[in-house]
């Protein structure tokens, strides 16, 4: 297949690079290969890490070699995905109330939209989870409607509250834990994104879809209390991949 490059990442990993940009088509190939490698149970593969445009494959050199794996993987670059014809579409409660959205007005001003228009566009988009990283469970989702695309904040915050819904460049995300962050905060989701005690520790996984469903502040508080009591599951539906 044209454009695919195998790049070494030391003695225990290699990258399969499909391109250098953030594009759905590249991501689909990355995710399909990740699934395929899982199905094939290639000898010596420890794990794979799909990112926007490449797949990191970690392996054990006592069981295989980078050269062997490249040969094996090359034979499957064109395989159609079979395991996941359907994926989860998460319906994430999102509170765009100003108490949860310190940057909403600024985003509106800089995009030339009203804050309601920002919310309508953000909540009206079905996002793909491209990558989970930065922090455990942090979903990098895209793509934002072009009117909402802004560079990162000039001054990153030292503390972004857990649950903050953020956006920058073509992407949106949700902070699983309080952490530093440079994205614009336009809302908050009262949900838990990561729990190491779950069998599937991250709620959102690469290849999932997500849609933000606006809730008012009272509903946000109600759901947050239910989450605290372990009495709330984020709804999802199965949709075509």
């Amino acid at each position, binding site marked *: 297949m044209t454009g695919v490059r195998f*790049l*070494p*990442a*030391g*003695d*225990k*990993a290699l*990258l399969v*690079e499909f391109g*250098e*940009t*953030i594009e759905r088509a590249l991501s689909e190939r990355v995710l399909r290969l*990740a699934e395929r490698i899982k199905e094939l149970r290639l000898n010596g593969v*420890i*794990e*794979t*890490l*799909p*990112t*926007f*445009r*490449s*797949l*990191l494959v*970690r392996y054990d*050199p*006592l069981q295989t*070699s*980078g*050269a062997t794996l490249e040969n094996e993987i090359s034979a499957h670059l064109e395989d159609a995905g079979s395991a996941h014809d359907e994926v989860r579409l998460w319906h994430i409660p999102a509170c765009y109330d100003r108490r949860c959205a310190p940057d909403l007005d600024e985003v509106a001003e800089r995009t030339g939209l009203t804050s309601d228009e920002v919310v309508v566009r953000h909540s009206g988009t079905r996002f793909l989870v491209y*990558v*989970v*990283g*930065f*922090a*455990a*469970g*942090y979903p*990098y989702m895209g793509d934002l409607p072009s009117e909402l695309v802004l560079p990162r904040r000039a001054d990153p915050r030292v503390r972004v509250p857990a649950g903050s819904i953020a956006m920058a460049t073509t992407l949106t995300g949700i902070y699983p*834990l309080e952490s530093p962050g440079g994205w614009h905060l336009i809302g908050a989701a009262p949900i838990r994104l*990561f729990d*190491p*005690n779950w069998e599937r*520790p*991250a709620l959102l*996984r*690469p290849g999932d879809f997500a849609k933000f469903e606006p809730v008012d502040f009272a509903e946000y508080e109600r759901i947050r209390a239910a989450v605290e009591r372990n009495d709330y599951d984020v709804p999802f539906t199965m949709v075509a991949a």
Partner: protein
Amino acid sequence: MIPILRVKSPGLHTTVQDLGRDGFADVGVPPSGAVDAVALRLANALVGNAPNAAALEILVSGPALEAIAESVHVAFVGGTAGVSVQDAHQRSVAPGRSVHLKQGDVLKAGMIAGSSCGYIAVAGGLSVPRLLGSASTYTRGTLGGFEGRPLRAGDILYGEVGDSAQGELELAAPLDSEFDAPIRVVLGPQEDHFTAAAIEAFLAATYTVSAQADRMGFRLEGPVLAHTRGYNIVSDGIVSGSIQVPGSGQPIVLMRDYQTIGGYPKIATVISPDISRLGRRSPGAKVHFVRVSRDEAEAIYRDEEAAIAARIADLREPRERASINLDALYDENLIGGIINARE
């Protein structure tokens, strides 16, 4: 599961680590695990454990631990300074050997010398909840190990078992920190984002470990490396040993608690056996990178695994008592019954 050790003082940054967790990079969880995986494995072997048993990692200065079980078999590996056992004799215990503690004895690991990290293993392994398949502490994510954090005074450590009947052991040859050894790298995955001169400078230079060196990564100081196409790439996957070069042109070697994806070009990757070698170096230490091919790197890894297995097969009964103190040796003869109570 029984209480075995009480933390009297925690040391600078003492965490529970094993060989790390695999399989969760795709949800943003790095492997964590021992910075010096060789020292951890040897410490575990000295007390009869499997290589992956949970042990304590000590950075720079170590804890004081009081034995609260009847008897606890422990070993320390890392650097050239040993630990002391505060009992009737104030015994000194050389690095690379195990010792049985009696209830009330205090194992004290002071400043580590000749390495920046050391490991205290206990027979049977420390008992902590295994999160995502590992006992390792990932402090940035408050995950794993002892409540996801470094030890504090007053913490009680549990063991899987009480003491083992196994006798004390020592390494046949000390573990050398190899401060002068070159750190071997495989170029890539993004060496094509650097000028030929930058790659040449990277391999010719002597870098210095900066003060910003921790479990997440080691920032190095040396020649500035020029990028060809800017210093931003669309973020992709990181591994232990990835050498990122941000806009400053100063390389950062990612260690164990790294962010799983990164948006700076990676000029090269430190081969896995040499991550332990680099991890032993403190701020101010020198680093010289040498290029090897991927095939060579894999062969080195296999050879080094065989060498570690050989070291473990060569463990022997200690040639000396757990003391370098003649008075203590003399005392031991007079009240040998107490010493021998461990048996």
